[in-house]
């Protein structure tokens, strides 16, 4: 009897790229849900816009590059990129933010570097960094959370604001509000001490206004990913541990000048980055120790940008900077090969 030949191993595959990407999307659900409860409908518009533009650009580029369209469109990697981007922009950001962001994320950072698996830089962070630089005003206009808002914009108002960029009859000053990190930044510019800055209503007890709940949602999703074996512990641990250690030390030295460690960790996008951005396999390190170093580096650079930089939150720039070091990190953190003395 004759049989077809095939290479070993002769077992069904255990893991698949598209399943991994889908699991990442599931893990984002708690955070998205919290986002919706705190800031209203905006997040869904942002996700829809980003995913739409991302798929469009991906399709176009795959056609241009003559790559198998269906295989790469169905791997969900571009959807993950888009959803993560949507989570980083203000809920009422106009549509061109998503368009420009995805242009840089998908076309420049991903496809021009060779598509899935070949990008040196995290596509989401390239997109975020691009819009941060191109549209600083739009990107600073965060909605006030439900607890501090005279009334969150409804579905139709949100749709009009996002799709036209016009606020219409919305009381823009009333419904927007500086985020805690914005407050810290402007307070520091006014040479205020931390306790004075924290008198503002956005700083209340933990969990009062919702930012913390969104972050806890990301944390829950991230821990689930860890349990599922989709991500490994080193990178998130590096980010969180380095943040806590450095922030605690500074805070102990002078609590008037430095925000508390919990504020550093729960404000801004450090937590979502710890579990969903820094863990990106393609643009991150592949060795266990390398991941730890990568995570620590992202945390340190983020804290430095928050302290001295020109942007309230520097996660995107921190990740991109660390992306540059990945080949070096990988080279010097290789495990010792069996039987080979170093």
């Amino acid at each position: 009897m004759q049989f077809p030949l095939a290479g070993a191993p002769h077992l069904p595959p255990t893991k698949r790229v598209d399943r991994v990407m889908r699991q990442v999307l599931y893990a984002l659900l708690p955070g998205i849900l919290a986002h919706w409860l705190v800031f209203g409908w905006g997040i869904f518009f942002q996700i829809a816009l980003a995913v739409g533009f991302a798929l469009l650009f991906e399709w176009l580029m795959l056609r241009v590059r003559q790559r198998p369209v269906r295989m790469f469109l169905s791997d969900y990697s571009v959807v993950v990129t888009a959803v993560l981007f949507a989570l980083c922009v203000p809920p009422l950001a106009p549509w061109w933010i998503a368009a420009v962001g995805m242009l840089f994320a998908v076309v420049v950072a991903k496809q021009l570097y060779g598509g899935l698996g070949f990008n040196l830089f995290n596509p989401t962070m390239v997109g975020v960094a691009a819009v941060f630089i191109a549209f600083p005003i739009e990107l600073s206009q965060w909605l006030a959370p439900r607890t501090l808002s005279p009334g969150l914009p409804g579905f139709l108002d949100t749709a009009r604001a996002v799709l036209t960029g016009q606020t219409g009859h919305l009381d823009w000053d009333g419904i927007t509000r500086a985020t805690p990190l914005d407050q810290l930044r402007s307070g520091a510019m006014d040479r205020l001490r931390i306790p004075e800055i924290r008198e503002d209503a956005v700083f209340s007890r933990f969990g009062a206004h919702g930012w913390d709940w969104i972050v806890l949602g990301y944390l829950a999703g991230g821990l689930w990913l860890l349990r599922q074996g989709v991500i490994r512990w080193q990178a998130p641990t590096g980010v969180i541990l380095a943040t806590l250690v450095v922030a605690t030390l500074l805070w102990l030295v002078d609590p008037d000048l430095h925000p508390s460690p919990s504020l550093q960790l729960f404000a801004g996008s450090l937590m979502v980055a710890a579990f969903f951005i820094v863990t990106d396999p393609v643009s991150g390190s592949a060795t266990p120790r390398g991941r730890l170093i990568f995570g620590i580096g992202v945390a340190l650079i983020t804290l430095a940008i928050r302290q001295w930089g020109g942007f309230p939150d520097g996660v995107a720039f921190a990740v991109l900077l660390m992306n540059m070091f990945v080949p070096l990190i990988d080279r010097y953190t290789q495990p010792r090969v069996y039987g080979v003395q170093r």
Partner: protein
Amino acid sequence: MSQASADFRLHDFHGGLALDGHKAVSLEVPLASAGLPERVYVPIGQHQGEAGDLLLGPGDQVLAGQALTSSADDFEVPAHAPCSGTVVGLCERPASHPPGSRRRCIEILNDGRDEWVAPTPLKHWAECPSGKIVDHLHAMGLVGLGGAMFPTAAKLRGPWGAIHTLILNGAECEPWISCDEMLMRTRPEAVIRGGQVLAAAVAAERVIIAVEDDMDGIADALKKALAQQHGSLEMVIVEVPSVYPQGGERQLIETLTGLQVPGDGLPQDIGLLCHNVATAAAASDAVVHGRPLTERIVTVTGPGIQRPCNLRAAVGTPVAHLVAAAGGYRDGVQRLVLGGPMSGTALSSDEVVLTKGSHCVLALTDQELAPRPEPMPCINCGDCVAVCPASLMPQLLFRALAADRHEQARDLSLLECIECGCCAQVCPSQIPLVDYYRHGKARLGLKDLDQRRAALAKRRYEAREQRLAQQQADREARRRARAERLQKAGGARDEIQAAIERAKAKKRSGD
């Protein structure tokens, strides 16, 4: 016989995979004989090494157990006839590896009488010098039965220091395979005895028998058999975790001793020697019963086999004969594998014959072989890094090899890859990584060969240049000598006179 150390300290090796065993299915039925086919095809030179000279020709009568080939050194292992009958002659049969290749075999027409040569046991082996034991094992055709078929004698003696510990490898880590477990269950005393024989052959002080912790009652069976033996040899039975590839020689050594075999060395370099339990049992048979190695236990199993079981089968039996003995194929057989699912070789035909290293015939159906999706690009997830037992960076190796950067792959320790298949199994992009590594190693091997050839050619060229220069120098010297003679006083006249004399002499002798 001491049997102490319940508190044997185990170590971890890096990586590995916990896989579903699927072993019970072939262990439920008792060990049976596959019976001899009408014709057997005994492979020649099936072991790593050369084939010896043929001792028999077409038409010769042969008895079971009779040597078919001679042996000039430890790497030429003699082959023996598994049955009595008539030698038909040499033929080429399909081989398992490399795919599509053929292997020289001696075809024997089985006369069904099963007449054996007189057994030649090694009497009083315990008092024999170790060299004599090794010679005997070699004459009985022993090779490593774990799969690699390395000549046992070549493993027992060589240019290394003293061996203090012999490890018997009963860690049968690949899914589906259960022949070693069946052997230890049915013949534990042969394994123990074989351990004593092999230890005596290298003067080892102690023997560790490693079995997997999910083997039901095997450790107890071995301990019972051990208790009935006498002797001063220290022997320990150790249960090791059933993690693939625990049965890899280097991994098992690390688990048991915490030591790593040097990358460019052998276990013998650190005083250890590792043999498969089946090799030990064969050594016992060879020494105690004087029986040459002509058969082994083979697991015939998988969802594509009617009655999965373990069979005693003669070396040289076609796989089809074994499958028939196990009830034949089931519907939907998609792939026939010689060996286990992780590192076995897919067969293109069931005409392939068993060698001494064939431990498993696995028939898989399309159900568990759900068509593998097209490979995606590597996403650098590092899952392969986490499972690699050699602590390599498989994804970097892949990138180097995919770009034909073979020297970079060598720098990334490609040659330390043991081809266990863990990386390919966990790869979310379904990249056939092991295929890349095998190909890369072959390319590096060719490149090294080319380099050696180039070096040889260069040496030859240089030797020729030197020779030519020497000839030139000699000619020059002669010419100078002549010139000097001519320049001496009256030199030219003397020379002419001498030439005339020579011509005259020649003419005279010509007359």
